[in-house]
């Protein structure tokens, strides 16, 4: 376990730069998108949670999660690592620790990113509400009341995923982060053409997993218990599990053959 932690910490050291850049770019992108849509007079009467859903930031969050997975996997292709001349052969522990360390690293980076999104949302609440009320004030004489931050957190489906208050949504959060971290670890263990294939499958696999969670969310929220929804959920979940299995197999294969070396 100690060797896994050491390796993970070393890889954290290697990817923290790109990770910080990704977080910063994401923050700027989100703030700009929210403020620009808040200043749109066609969205008069919108509040923060509606705006967040209306401007398309929600899918961008999941795209960014996939980017975090790729950043985490980039540790094994880092030039610094190559310079230090440590390879699968010279590693002081079993080669499987590479996969384990990358999985834990992915999980930590993804959890950090989820927390970053919550912070960003809370931070964006004040400027976005200010712009919304300025736009409204310029169009109407009387001031409109605005939702509090708690209400805005409560009304946003993404925040319901990230700040779970029920066991179901907690499991969904763990599942989403776990699947993404798993694909990230598989990516990290492969090299060359296999890595390209694994990355592509990882994008589809995480996409399918997120879609499965969304279908389940829809079922719970709208109380639909129709067999067609369950069938769709089962099919999408099967695709997600299948792609995850294929990627794990590829990673095992690559590690066995020491392709990563």
């Amino acid at each position, binding site marked *: 376990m100690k060797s896994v*932690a*050491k390796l*993970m*910490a*070393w890889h*954290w*050291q290697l990817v*923290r730069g790109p990770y910080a850049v990704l977080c910063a770019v994401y923050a700027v992108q989100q703030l700009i998108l929210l403020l620009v849509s808040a200043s749109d007079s066609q969205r*008069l*009467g919108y509040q923060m949670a509606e705006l967040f859903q209306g401007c398309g930031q929600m899918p961008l969050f999941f795209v960014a999660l996939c980017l975090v997975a790729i950043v985490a996997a980039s540790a094994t292709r880092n030039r610094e690592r190559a310079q230090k001349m440590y390879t699968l052969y010279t590693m002081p522990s079993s080669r499987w620790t590479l996969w384990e360390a990358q999985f834990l690293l992915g999980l*930590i980076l993804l*959890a*950090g990113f*989820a*927390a*970053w999104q*919550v*912070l960003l949302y*809370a931070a964006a609440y004040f400027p976005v509400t200010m712009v919304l009320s300025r736009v409204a004030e310029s*169009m*109407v*004489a*009387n001031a*409109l*009341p605005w*939702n*509090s*931050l*708690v*209400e805005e*957190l*409560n*009304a946003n*489906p993404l*925040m*319901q995923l*990230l*700040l*779970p*208050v*029920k066991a179901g*949504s907690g499991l969904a959060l763990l599942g989403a982060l776990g699947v993404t971290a798993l694909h990230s670890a598989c990516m990290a263990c492969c090299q060359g053409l296999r890595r390209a294939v694994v990355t592509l499958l990882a994008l589809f696999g995480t996409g399918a997993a997120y879609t499965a969670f969304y279908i389940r969310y829809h079922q*719970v*929220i*709208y*109380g*639909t*218990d*129709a*067999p*067609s*929804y369950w069938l769709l959920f089962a099919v999408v979940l099967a695709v997600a599990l299948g792609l995850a299995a294929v990627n794990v197999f590829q990673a095992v294969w690559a590690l066995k053959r020491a392709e990563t070396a």
Partner: protein
Amino acid sequence: MKGERKMKHKKVVRPYSVCLASLAAGIAVLLAGSVFLRAGYPADAVVLQVQTGDTSQLQGFTLQGAWQETIKSGISFSLENGSLTTVPQLQAEPDSGIALWGQGRLCVPEENLAEVDAQAAGGAFSGSYGAFFLRSHYEGMNFTAETTHLEEIYALTVTDGSDLSVRFSLGEIETSAPVTVTAEIHTENRVWGSFPYCTALDGVADTVSGIREVQILSAEKPVSLYVGPGNGQNAGIWQVLQLCTPEEIEQIVPDVMIHGTAVPSNTEPYGAVEEVCTLDAGERLAPCADWYNARLDNGRWFLTENGEGELSLLLLDENWQILSKQLLGMKMTEGQQVTVLPSMRTNEIVFTVTDSNGAGQASVLRMENGKVQAQKVMTVTAETPLLTAGFSQDGTKLMIVSEKAEDLTVLVPAALREQYAYTPMAESEVPYTADAVTGWNVQVYPVDDLSEPSFSAVLDFGVTQQWAREIWLSGVYNVERNISRFEVIGAWENAKGEHV
């Protein structure tokens, strides 16, 4: 030597401490957010403002309410023995009912089809729907004919996507004047499907007598229906025993021939229904839009009307079997409507009988072993609609809860109204006024004297009711928007809609 010095002076990299710190920070943010969601909710969203009397008068009463802010969240409160507690409802569950769609039709019975088909006239029709590459065309033939012999068919479909359905006949009807019936045969792109000769109930309800009305009484399993009197049959309560899938329906329903084309029959019943309770001759269920709250601790209750306006209380057990029926000594007139209110106790019944403007009478009954133990009748006015009423635990006091409404006026710029509602305005600002429920009036009376309340208070909804915004938006779009408001939660369920 050089290497040794370098090792000595180089800062030792201890990445895990940073890594673990960032992990801890991430988890801390997520946990803090969760705590903030629970603790930061405005607990003062509901405030009790006492006007006369003291809160000791509230001993023995429990009033529950909830406000569904969105489909996902809300707030609920309970005023129990004078103390008010507010609980956030995070990610509220939807109610457990099944989404149902019922449709009645008058169809030509199968044995008369050939005869009606022979005298039918018709022609081809075609059209299209959708746009661009999703554009689809449909075409077919439709025929119309006139007949006096029809069968009333009722179909009930679950609209959650499963399309489970039941269809049953309500008897054959001989009309005094001929009724126009239509059949459609879709040759390609069957959008709405082909059907043999029939007509919708809406168009003929005034001209054809004997049609039995159907009302959904309970959308929870087992689905229960009220089937009104007519066609020589007494009114009754029916239960759906079996719903069929679209595949089963396809197997069960035979084809009939319309102008030489096979079309699925629309009179063949499928699924199963059973009449669980039959009312007396001339008796019918009192007109009421929703019997959702008509429950007691040991079953359900309904109000029936005997044709002369006299109301009876019908008590049913959990299996919808009649327990007892008793005259209430109340009368309703033509055009009046019953509204079932959520009660504050599981052994109490609250309802109003009002005109279309909302004025009329209200009645509170306390039940014990299937008998009315106490009854209080009071008048209600259109200005302060009654929300609920109930006796205290010992039965010496009566609590009446009604809406406290205020007229709120906002000024809407005419330019904005023009932009959104396309109505040109002469003035620069248009005032828009709407009725806003800003709280509830809570009054407690001695049970034998309803002239002067011994306690009076206002449950005021503070911060979260966004009336100004909603009314202002109603003014902008010049349409009444559906504004969510606090609702009384009956004693038989909790704020999440679960049975307790």
